[in-house]
């Protein structure tokens, strides 16, 4: 019992620098020492801030190191990782950014963070072979409306009122080009092989692809997208999606076929 109580005091003092040092700590000279305890507090906070710097490099680049670290410290104070698997840390960082008043001038920032977390999920997602256009061609034309797609485990779709895909791409370059940030964009993230790809979809295709990835049949999805813009061609949109490597299987009625 003493052990659990001691841990609870230690953990509380790690979280709150204003608290007195936990009882029962000492040193070789016979007294507790704030600077010694601060090593532990610093290790916890700095290592978690570093984990966020690594996971959100574009947000970091946009706001600069000092701003990012201040924002990350505020996040770390409220949100500790749910497990020791730090590659999943930061799942709620985008929501935090959206509610972080000093970042409000950058309306797109939270959605860029969402895109970066999706990139990280895609990077670590399960491996699967994507299907090709040839695989699709083996399906009889009259069956196509009843086909459902099995999304690749790495596939993520993000829609934003801001040009998050263009912003993200611009920040992969050494020189950041000007971006018209107010343009809405839908970005498809996936990882057909070793490399994560983020692609801006034609806006007219977005509702159709969103419906397909949510599990609709091709026929159902085309129906929902029917009112889309005049540039919309379901065949071309489907071919584009498969060419990106975002699909790892097809389901016809209840039968699944994978490559």
């Amino acid at each position, binding site marked *: 019992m003493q052990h659990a109580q001691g841990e609870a005091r230690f953990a509380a003092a790690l979280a709150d620098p204003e608290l007195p040092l936990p009882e029962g700590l000492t040193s070789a000279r016979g007294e507790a020492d704030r600077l010694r305890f601060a090593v532990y507090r610093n290790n916890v906070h700095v290592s978690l801030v570093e984990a966020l710097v690594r996971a959100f490099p574009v947000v970091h680049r946009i706001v600069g190191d000092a701003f990012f670290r201040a924002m990350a410290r505020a996040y770390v104070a409220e949100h500790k990782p749910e497990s*020791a698997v730090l590659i999943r840390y930061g799942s709620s960082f985008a929501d935090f950014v959206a509610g972080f008043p000093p970042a409000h001038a950058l309306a797109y920032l939270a959605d860029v963070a969402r895109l970066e977390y999706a990139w990280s999920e895609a*990077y670590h997602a399960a491996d699967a072979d994507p299907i090709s256009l040839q695989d699709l061609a083996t399906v009889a034309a009259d069956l196509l409306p009843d086909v459902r797609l099995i999304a690749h485990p790495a596939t993520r779709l993000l829609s934003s009122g801001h040009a998050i895909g263009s912003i993200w791409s611009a920040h992969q370059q050494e020189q950041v080009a000007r971006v018209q940030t107010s343009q809405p964009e839908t970005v498809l993230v996936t990882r057909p092989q070793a490399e994560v790809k983020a692609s801006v979809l034609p806006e007219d295709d977005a509702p159709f692809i969103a419906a397909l990835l949510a599990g609709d049949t091709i026929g159902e999805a085309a129906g929902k997208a029917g009112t889309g813009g005049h540039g919309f061609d379901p065949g071309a949109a489907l071919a584009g999606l498969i060419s990106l490597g975002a699909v790892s299987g097809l389901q016809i009625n209840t039968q699944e076929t994978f490559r």
Partner: protein
Amino acid sequence: MPPCNNLPSRAGLGLKPEHYGEILSDRPDIGFFEVHAENYMGEGGPPHRYLSAIAERYPLSLHGVGLSIGGSRDLDQAHLARLKRLIERYRPVSFSEHLAWSTHDSGYLNDLLPLPYTDETLNRVCAHVGEVQETLGTRMLLENPSTYLLFEESTIDEIDFLQAISERTGCGLLLDVNNVMVSAINHRLDAYDYIRRFPVERVGEIHLAGYDETADEAGERLAIDAHASTVHDDVFALYEFTLGRTGPIPTLVEWDNDVPDFPTLQAEAERVDDALARLPAAGRRVA
């Protein structure tokens, strides 16, 4: 239970993503590679591709940092299951973890936090080590910590604590010589005396690393286990003294922060291999 350790008695290096490509193309002569288990707990993707390729060519040591074996609460079964999957997938020749805790109500604290050494904590840690070995189907190595503070309630000496765990559970010990130096500086102990008293026959692996240094409120030396530089000369001298007691032991150089280029790491490994090669054959421990 299979033995906890089949690493070669050579220098090993921590595997860093920055060096994946170079290691696979140049095939440097390194005794083994060690990875932090938690970095490979995603489902797939490049980390697993590279680790698979490297594990085909080098002996692999799996080193956990997040199991919280020294914690008061029950072990996280989901985390244990993830470790089990990794061990089944990669069949590492060694698995090790820390005498420390890291998990509390607020979540995972991402540091190796210290525990008092009492009968209560000894029983708890022994139960945890036993559960880990039972679940993973392998003996493990438990690493001595580096610490910055002491607990008034501690009634058991650290070496006696580690030895008791090893005797009761059958686990081996991972002797981190840098941690010994850090704790010795921080608690006014004699690092050489620590090594003299350590149960070397239970040591399956040695760790080396660089430490940082600052001062506490009273202006006394405060060493910090930083893993961000070369192994300091005082630690290397202590390592050579340790080898005199242990004979050749697999030895990892840890460099986890401000990771340098691979040739810099390789030079650290060569220094360790040279020290191992200097050991007189007669003094080598029979395994």
